[in-house]
């Protein structure tokens, strides 16, 4: 039954995709944010997970008939997992769980996210202290939270719905490691946002910057000072990607383990206005 139904959904998506207006299945859709991760003694998602999911993913998420999902949050983000549990995974053995309802699904998602937290070695920290660290390190020079801050980096108002604690920790200690996806581009949803590029013009000028737009005939790069350079591709002798490079400095050495955990907890709790 499930298989037959999935095939119809797949075909439906094909229609949407037919003329290039395609949205990938498991998008980082801006759905509803799960509830804040609360490190309680017995998380409410635990018994739900063990009842609904463990038969395939194992009691601790490390796999069985289904895959190991202990790191799934790092890749899919809380919203991605929520979507997956709501719509299933087309053409696979992963069923949908609409009967659980939004509230329980969010509790399960929080529980799955906590696997990634354990796996990455981050501990739940003090979000209030984390907020203070965010202020003292001047992160808002480049990031917006609730409308306040600079915009050289991504808006972090809802970053807790996009990134798991493990990914947040990576983003702070190894900037550029995983470039954030820009979920706003409808046509090519996985266009790599925040990619750094180096352009050399035919007359020898060199510009390194963040790619803010790229089309067939021109490219716009934003330099460290925030200035945008619009370049005609015909005038360039070279345009190269600089994967792994970021305007964001690494805070690997600038933060103690406790401080990092506090900062991650603060960011994980940023889930936007509901």
């Amino acid at each position, binding site marked *: 039954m499930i*298989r*037959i139904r*999935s*095939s*119809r*959904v*797949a*075909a*439906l*998506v*094909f*229609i949407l*995709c*037919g*003329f*290039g207006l*395609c949205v*990938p*299945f498991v998008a980082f859709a801006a759905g509803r944010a799960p509830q804040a991760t609360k490190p309680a003694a017995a998380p409410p998602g635990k018994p739900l997970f063990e009842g609904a999911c463990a038969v395939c993913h194992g009691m601790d998420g490390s796999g069985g008939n289904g895959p190991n999902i202990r790191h799934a949050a790092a890749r899919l983000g809380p919203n991605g997992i929520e979507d997956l549990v709501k719509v299933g995974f*087309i*053409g*696979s053995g992963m069923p949908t769980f609409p009967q659980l309802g939004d509230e329980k699904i969010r509790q399960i998602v929080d529980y799955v996210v906590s696997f990634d937290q354990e796996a990455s070695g981050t501990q739940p920290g003090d979000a209030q202290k984390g907020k203070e660290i965010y202020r003292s390190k001047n992160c808002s020079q480049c990031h917006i939270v609730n409308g306040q801050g600079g915009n050289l980096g991504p808006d972090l108002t809802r970053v807790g719905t996009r990134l798991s604690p493990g990914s947040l920790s990576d983003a702070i200690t190894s900037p550029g490691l995983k470039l954030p996806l820009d979920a706003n581009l409808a*046509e*090519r*949803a*996985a*266009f*790599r946002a925040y*990619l750094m590029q180096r352009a050399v013009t035919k007359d020898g000028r060199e510009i390194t910057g963040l790619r803010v737009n*790229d*089309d*067939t*005939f021109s490219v716009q790069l934003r330099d460290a000072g925030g200035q945008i350079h619009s370049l005609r591709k*015909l005038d360039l002798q070279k345009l190269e990607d600089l994967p792994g490079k970021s305007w964001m400095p690494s805070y690997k050495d600038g933060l103690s383990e406790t401080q990092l955990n506090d900062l991650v907890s603060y960011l994980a709790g940023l889930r936007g206005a509901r």
Partner: protein
Amino acid sequence: MWNAGSYDPETNTLYWGTGNPAPDWNGDGRLGDNLFTCSLIAVDANTGKMKWYFQFSPHETHDWDSAQPPILFDAAVKGKPRKLVSLANRNGFYYVLDRTTGEFLTGIPFVKQTWAQGLDAKGRPITLPNIEPTVEGTLVYPAITGGINWNSPSYSPLTGLFYVPAREAGSYYIKGEEKMAPGNSVGMVGGGGGGAKFMTGDDVYTTVRGLEATTGRKTWEFKMTGDAWTGTLATAGGLVFSADAGSNLFALDALTGKPLWHLQVGTAVRANPITYAVDGEQYVVAVAGNSVFAFTLPQVAQAPQAPAQGH
């Protein structure tokens, strides 16, 4: 059939490419070659009788129909002048056939493809293992939208090049359950026995490529960002017109592919540009959104050209 065919007045023959068999992604209930799907068919224009057929993709399971517009041209192959028909197929291969007999002459990929080792001497694909759609999804190139789709290629006798709007991408092909039943529409609307997930990101792109028409060898390419859906127009003035996904209408040098001119028209160009002459004056026209853009060269000794625009 869902796309334009071609007509050869000399031999009074119509050429049409045919669609793919259904259910699209599940071939279990339709074993065999499924004639005359995914074929080029030559038909006598007076009697409607089939003169010959050539099947590109026997037992097709990736939704790669063969409805792409066939191009008729005459050229020398191995020193001998021949009447040819060529077709850049959705399956990723470029084919050249003798248009009087349907004899297969050449076929090579014009985009990345991962489903065939190549074509045999008769032009039949030698398929690779593990390319069939599966319940989990199988990654195969080209994408479900094909190496080319309905957007027309063009040919210039001046350069001997075939100008193909080519798409570089793969898809995850998914197999579902779908049975043919009376009264059930199949294909896109009815289910089609599966579907596909797109690859996305910077690795997916579209190009205009200049292929040597008799061999399919690539001589140049013009790379575009995004997912373009415009055909090409080759002119006697040595230009190739097309448009990209970002609404840039452009002209390339037909010999080198170098961009010579472009204009941001502000909305999608998804029809082929066309050209014609009235009272000795030549026009290039493109439809973009709900507007028609017409261009002509400025009168001698007149100021820079102003594009005429109307609805």
